[in-house]
């Protein structure tokens, strides 16, 4: 299936933390800013974390392990990302829960040419209008981040979700 071998290779790549600590800190801070954007629901700013033709997808661990390509979200470039934001703002009715992302420490592989493969554990807690909280998603960011003239951007962000049975529905990006 299309790009499947590539998907499996990308997301299972070996990582290490033997990059300079300044690099590690910059990359971790970049993901930290990314989740702050989501927690504060500044969705209009969200596509700006990606390269113009960057890829964002939420990929169930079940499919990763079975070698199957189906995703929960698949957005290819800024235009599709802006469309999702437009739909969330203007079109779709969904439960607008309070959202908190919690990140682990990154594991990093320097791929050269200012590109880094970065994987980071992520936990997302949703709290509803009555103040009830639940784990929305446990998973891992499998990112490829590029440094272009001092500015970081996601070439690709794949969220591999262990919580592949989605609690209710999945509206906002993770």
């Amino acid at each position, binding site marked *: *299936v*299309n*790009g499947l071998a590539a998907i499996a290779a990308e997301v299972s790549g070996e990582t290490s933390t033997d990059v300079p600590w300044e690099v590690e800190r910059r990359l971790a801070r970049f993901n930290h800013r990314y989740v702050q954007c989501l927690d504060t629901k500044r969705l209009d700013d969200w596509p700006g974390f990606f390269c113009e033709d960057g890829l964002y*997808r*939420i990929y*169930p661990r*079940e*499919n990763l392990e*079975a070698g*199957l*390509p*189906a*995703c*929960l*979200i*698949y*957005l*290819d*470039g800024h*235009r*599709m990302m*802006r*469309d*999702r934001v*437009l*739909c969330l703002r*203007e*079109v*779709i*009715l*969904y*439960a607008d829960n309070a959202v908190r992302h919690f990140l682990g420490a990154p594991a990093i592989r320097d791929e050269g040419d200012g590109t880094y493969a970065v994987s980071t554990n992520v936990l997302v807690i949703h709290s509803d209008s009555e103040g009830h909280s639940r784990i929305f998603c446990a998973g891992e960011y499998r990112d490829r981040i590029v440094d272009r003239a001092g500015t970081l951007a996601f070439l690709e962000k794949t969220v591999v979700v262990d919580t*592949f*049975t*989605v*609690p*209710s*529905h*999945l*509206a906002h990006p993770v």
Partner: protein
Amino acid sequence: MSEMQADAARRIHWARDDAVPYSVYVDEEVFRLEQERIFQGPVWSYLGLAAEVPKPGDFLSTFVGTVPVVLNRGRDGALHAFVNRCAHRGATVVRELRGNCKVHTCLYHQWSYDPEGRLVGIPYRRGLDGVGGFPSDFRPEEHGLRKVKVASIQGLVFGTLSQQAPPLESFLGDFVCERLRRVFNRELVSLGYQRQRVRANWKLMVENVKDSYHGALLHAFNSRFGFFRSSQRGDVRMTSGGMHGILTTYSTPAEQVASAYEQVATFKPNLTLEDMSVVRFTREHDDEIVTSIISLFPTCLMLHGGTFLIIRQVRPKSAGEFEMVWTIVGFADEDEERRALRVKQTANLLGPAGYVSMEDAEAIEATQTALRGEGGNAQGIIALGGRTVEDQDHLVTEVAIRGFWKGYRALMGGEVRP
């Protein structure tokens, strides 16, 4: 009427055939009776695709109602299914979602079974050093895993726990079989799964799919991009007395549509997408059918249209919760470009994160929340398009929902008593 049926009838008061008593969605005793009379009753439940277990020894774990079931390709190449409960002490035998093996071994006392569910190994059967062991009249051939009867149509595999179920094709009815032969007209392949846990009764999900009323009203995305509209030329056909229903839409000139939306609050005529690739559909078959929404009693929901070839299996967990598993299906002979488009369009429009489908989970959870507390005789109305159950040549109707409840009452033992 048996004593049990009288019980159920007392619990649920069906005062009208164009209304649904809300207790049917929240009463845990009703949920228990459903497992016995519907899911373990004379119906066929969807288990999976033959293509998901292509080789001898391939298996997948699924459910019939709340009963865990394994679909297994036997060493003989035939399809087998069995209840996933060890014949010895009841532990779960197969603990993976899918895989391939020659023998299933229970973790607890290591009783082992072949892919057809036969008991083939018992530790210490003859005892140890001359002591213990099972009695000499213990016959392993009488202690296999409980068989689930299997039948398939067009690569779709169904199972039943009942000896009373009619043959699969009689259960589905001619019209449904014809449509399945048209939609699933060649070798299939699974492209993966999406799952969601919804805090609502399973029947609200089944009704949602039979409900052509909400399509253009709840789903603003649909109405803007012409994926589905109530005003589109369409019809509702049912089989087996209303149990199974197919909502079909046919190609129609776009200009018929505009006026139908003037009074609809969720319609956003100013909406435009920057990237239209998610809604650029190409037809799969060369006929006038645009969309087939097929719901098979009790819990198999299929969608075909554009690049969508979807099978949803609703797995009830309690009166107030179900899991829904979406299988994204493709054809074995199609190219990678078509598969990539299926994956992209399905992910963005359907499933728990899709622009269209996520609203369904939200709407039925909002329903369950409101129904949970009250009890009493409150009921919901299903009178759009009349009060009876017969095929209709339009989609401004709740007739398929009325058909579902007619079939439901027949199995559960309830009658309409004003």
